[in-house]
């Protein structure tokens, strides 16, 4: 087995027993990036030299700590380019931040660095995390490792592709409307959006502050629990960070699922779903029922209104958050302006790409005088109804099960000119963000050779139940999903 194909828990075991070194593991990951990324384009920045130095430091620490070493010590990771990394360029895949080097680390990076991870690079994304395909990156489109004519999903497409193609042992992404779970589904890896507030947003470049959460991309559910435990926890630097204690998830996931009640929302199996995707998801649900999980129908009646609600709230928050890009303190600055107002307007006109401009315009219009009540306030009220739908369902069931995405990975270019059809890519994930709930996606089959995502959505702060269900399904299905990684022609 190639070392770069290892999971965290496999690598951890070999590292602690001294059978491999972090440097060997890191070299294997860097070699995979070197040979494949020309055709996959998962990375915006590869930090090979820094990675080797971190690996050597990890090896020294491993020799000292042995079995007491932190779980992620010496593990090579890829980080979405929206998470601030001190001294390492953080672009958000935008011209606006093309040369921006953060002077500080995000809290998640402080946590991962304290454990001694090896940062191999920063991954491509839709610009400022706005999109569902990475086609909105200002630099290039990431290719799906399963079929390079198809998108990897988005916005964290680079992180999903990197993990699927064994170009990292794990990765971090961010999820505002499905940006971890949807690309995880389309690339056949495990991806989790924790409960809003679980992971500090300090140092995460803000898109929509009431929806954004950082979370892991991993090769299996055990790894998901390991990374989740590493990044969660209260942070005084994020006022929305939850004070709740962090459970021992790697232990919790092994708990039996017999007797758990699982709800199948009928609205998530309606028009628009690919029948073969539905079949794969229903087969997975049957397998869980076979383990003694009680399955029942539930209704989330406002599902149909979630898309409009999300696409008012997220752009409204984005239009305020992105007001900071003024070309003065950092970032792109237009050189051809005379006055101050002109400088702002040209800097932003030249620095932002189409999708970002579109959302700034949508958000500004929805918040503007005369429209605020009809759009923004209305959406906030419907948000209450959407959250209440889940709350009612959770009186009867412990978790909800549904597809992550209605389709498998779509072709590059297929949805790029039609914002609404692109927005529909996140139909099954964005209600979870609107309600602040945790969700996990894992592969549950192949349709036309492309992975299908199974999603569990849970009660606030109940990631434990989601991980138990995901782990139980992973064990009973007994399958692992790996793309055929021939090098292919570079794109």
């Amino acid at each position, binding site marked *: 087995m190639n070392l770069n194909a290892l999971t965290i828990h496999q690598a951890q075991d070999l590292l602690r027993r001294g059978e491999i070194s972090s440097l060997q593991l890191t070299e294997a990951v860097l070699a995979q990036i070197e040979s494949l990324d020309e055709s996959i384009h998962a990375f915006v920045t590869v930090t090979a030299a820094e990675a080797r130095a971190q690996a050597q430091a990890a090896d020294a620490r491993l020799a000292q700590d042995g079995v007491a070493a932190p779980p992620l010590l010496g593990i090579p990771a890829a980080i979405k380019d929206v998470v601030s990394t001190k001294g390492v360029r953080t672009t958000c895949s935008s011209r606006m931040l093309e*040369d*921006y080097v953060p*002077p*500080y680390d995000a809290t998640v990076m402080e946590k991962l660095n304290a454990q001694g991870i090896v940062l191999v690079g920063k991954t491509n994304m839709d610009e400022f995390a706005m999109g569902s395909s990475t086609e909105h990156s200002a630099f290039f489109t990431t290719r799906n490792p399963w079929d390079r004519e198809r998108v990897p999903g988005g916005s964290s497409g680079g992180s999903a592709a990197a993990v699927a193609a064994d170009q990292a042992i794990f990765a971090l992404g961010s999820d505002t409307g499905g940006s971890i779970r949807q690309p995880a589904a389309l690339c056949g890896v495990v991806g989790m959006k924790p409960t*809003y*507030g679980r992971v500090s947003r300090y140092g995460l470049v803000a898109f929509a502050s*009431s929806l954004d959460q950082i979370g892991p991309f991993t090769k299996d559910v055990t790894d998901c629990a390991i990374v989740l435990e590493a990044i969660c926890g209260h942070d*005084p630097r994020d*006022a929305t960070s939850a004070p709740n204690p962090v459970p021992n998830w790697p232990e919790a996931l092994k708990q039996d699922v017999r007797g758990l009640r699982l709800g199948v929302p009928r609205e998530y199996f309606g028009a628009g779903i690919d029948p073969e995707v539905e079949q794969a998801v229903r087969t997975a649900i049957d397998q869980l029922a076979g383990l003694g999980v009680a399955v029942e129908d539930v209704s989330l009646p*406002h599902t149909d*209104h979630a898309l*409009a609600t999300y*696409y*008012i709230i997220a752009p409204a928050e984005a*239009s305020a958050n992105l007001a900071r890009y*003024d*070309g*003065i303190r*950092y*970032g*792109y*600055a237009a050189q051809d*302006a005379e*006055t*101050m107002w002109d400088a*702002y*307007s*040209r800097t*932003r*006109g*030249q620095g932002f790409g189409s999708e970002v*401009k*579109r959302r*700034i*315009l*949508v958000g*500004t*219009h*929805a918040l*503007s005088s*005369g429209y605020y*009540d*009809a759009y923004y*306030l*209305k959406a*906030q*009220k*419907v*948000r*209450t*109804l959407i*959250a*209440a739908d889940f*709350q*009612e369902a959770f009186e009867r069931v412990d978790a909800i099960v549904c597809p992550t995405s209605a389709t498998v990975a779509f072709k590059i270019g297929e949805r790029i000119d039609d*914002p*609404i059809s692109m927005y529909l890519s996140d139909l099954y994930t964005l209600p979870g963000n609107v*309600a*602040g709930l945790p969700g996990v996606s894992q592969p549950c089959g192949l349709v036309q050779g492309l992975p299908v995502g199974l999603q569990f959505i849970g009660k*606030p702060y109940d990631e434990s139940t989601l991980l138990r269900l995901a782990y139980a399904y992973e064990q009973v299905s007994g399958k692992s999903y790996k793309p055929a990684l021939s090098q292919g022609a570079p794109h």
Partner: protein
Amino acid sequence: MRRYNQFEATKGKRAVKDSDHTTTITRADVQHVANLARLALSAEEEERFQHQLSAVFEHFQKLSDLDTEQIPPTAQVIPLTNVMRPDAVEPSLPEQDVLANAPDREGDQFRVRAILEF
């Protein structure tokens, strides 16, 4: 009866009248909003965004099916309010680190264009 008590229950000051607005976005609307957002757009962009925004706001009409008169708005989903921290002085980032990304600077300051004209 549904319960909303765990949500932030600030009532909106103004009542929503769904029939009061139309969704057609004009070129002038795009220009107005672009100006509010300090976003320079080309003529081609104005035209494209006019069409796309019309379609997007048309979709938003869907929300007017719902009677939300009695529903409180939710601004954020977590039940935390008034999060305080001790008013203690802590070290800030070094000045030179903060200035390192500045597009234009003079000494230890960000350089900007004239804000007031006399």
